[in-house]
């Protein structure tokens, strides 16, 4: 138990810290593709995938970790992915984003987090279980893309890594924008850890390394998976109500660690404060949280579990989930932001 607590918390602390300081936000990355026509953060998510794929297949090759093989629940992934995408726009952050923003003192994220836990627990154990199980029962035989293509996973690892590498180099070669920086008030290590703005690719590199590390740390406690947010979030709420300690595993301490790591990062850099949004945002956060909980449970993972981890394994589930996360995000962004901008622009033209 102690080992589980320590190994989970360490991984979570590092992740929460890095996410907060790096302003790593998956919903922002997906949303900015259409809202700001900016693919830099989206590319950063693929940096995480590429780095992690190298690490996990190397670890798999040495036999330290093994991957599951129970088919691809395509219907659940499509439906759940789309619903999750909508939910995370309303919630103002993906599942992990919600955990770390709660650590920054955002009350809206606390509301979204509770909704998320509730939605996920209802789908895993409660009244939505029937619907969830039904959607998850449609499965293909193949779990992995390389299995279908009948090639070594390393073929995919190399292709993706090369592609991402080329795009990263292209991005870094673009002329540097003269971005205004605040005057530093700290020096040395304190400046780097608690003040400096981190390049998104540096953040992505660190997230990728933490995601690799998560596998053996988790495996040591008997849980054979990498970073995962949804099941632990559902399990915390269910554990608190039922007292069933079989629900506690490495993942539980991972998510608690994310919260604490983000809190430490925010506190250390003077970015922690209790912040209350307006009523409408709170309402959206609550709806978005529950929606996200259902979506993630049915899709078999959130933007971390599917979007970064299953995708690095080249599981069909991970890649198809990304496509539907994107579609859901775009539909919700259109209705919550873009449509209003267009109406405002039309109104100002008419006037």
């Amino acid at each position: 138990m102690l080992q589980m607590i320590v190994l989970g918390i360490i991984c979570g602390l590092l992740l929460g810290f890095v996410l907060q300081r790096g302003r790593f936000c998956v919903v922002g990355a997906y949303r900015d593709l259409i809202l700001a026509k900016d693919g830099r953060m989206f590319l950063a998510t693929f940096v995480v995938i590429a780095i992690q794929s190298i690490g996990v297949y190397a670890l798999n090759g040495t036999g330290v970790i093994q991957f599951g093989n129970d088919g691809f629940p395509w219907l659940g992934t499509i439906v759940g992915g789309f619903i999750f995408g909508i939910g995370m726009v309303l919630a103002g952050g993906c599942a992990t984003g919600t955990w770390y923003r709660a650590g920054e003192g955002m009350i809206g994220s606390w509301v979204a987090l509770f909704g998320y836990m509730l939605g996920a627990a209802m789908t895993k154990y409660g009244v939505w279980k029937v619907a969830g199980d039904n959607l998850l029962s449609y499965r293909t035989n193949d779990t992995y893309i390389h299995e279908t293509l009948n090639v070594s996973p390393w073929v995919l690892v190399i292709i993706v890594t090369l592609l991402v590498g080329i795009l990263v180099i292209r991005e870094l070669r673009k002329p540097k924008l003269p971005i205004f920086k605040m005057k530093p008030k700290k020096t040395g290590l304190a400046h780097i850890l608690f003040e400096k703005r981190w390049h998104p690719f540096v953040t992505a590199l660190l997230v990728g390394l933490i995601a690799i590390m998560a596998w053996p740390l988790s495996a040591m406690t008997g849980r054979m998976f990498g970073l995962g947010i949804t099941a632990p979030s559902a399990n915390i709420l269910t554990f608190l109500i039922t007292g069933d300690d079989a629900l506690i595993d490495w993942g539980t301490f991972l998510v608690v660690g994310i919260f604490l790591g983000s809190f430490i990062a925010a506190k250390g850099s003077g970015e922690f404060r209790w912040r209350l949004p307006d009523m409408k945002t709170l309402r959206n956060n609550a709806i978005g949280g529950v929606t996200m909980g259902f979506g993630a449970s049915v899709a078999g993972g959130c933007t971390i579990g599917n979007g970064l981890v299953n995708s690095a394994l080249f599981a069909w589930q991970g890649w198809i989930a990304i496509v539907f996360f994107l579609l859901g995000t775009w539909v919700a962004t259109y209705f919550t932001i873009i449509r209003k901008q267009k109406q405002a622009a039309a109104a100002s033209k008419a006037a």
Partner: protein
Amino acid sequence: MAKVLETTGMVCPFPLVEAKEAIADMAKGEELIINFDCTQATESIPRWAATEGHEITEFEQIDDAKWRIIVKKGK
């Protein structure tokens, strides 16, 4: 006279969305003072200003998780 945009309490991306809207009606050289408390906007607002060619004349953290940035419309 600079225009003040209060976005404290708004979560991202709304501070930036509001800033874009506010600056659209302003003349070149006018200044927009944006108060915000969404951490991610410390990244997105300066980046947007640089991309759009607006000048940042001041950017300060005024309190725990509270920032003020002054953007001078470039074009």
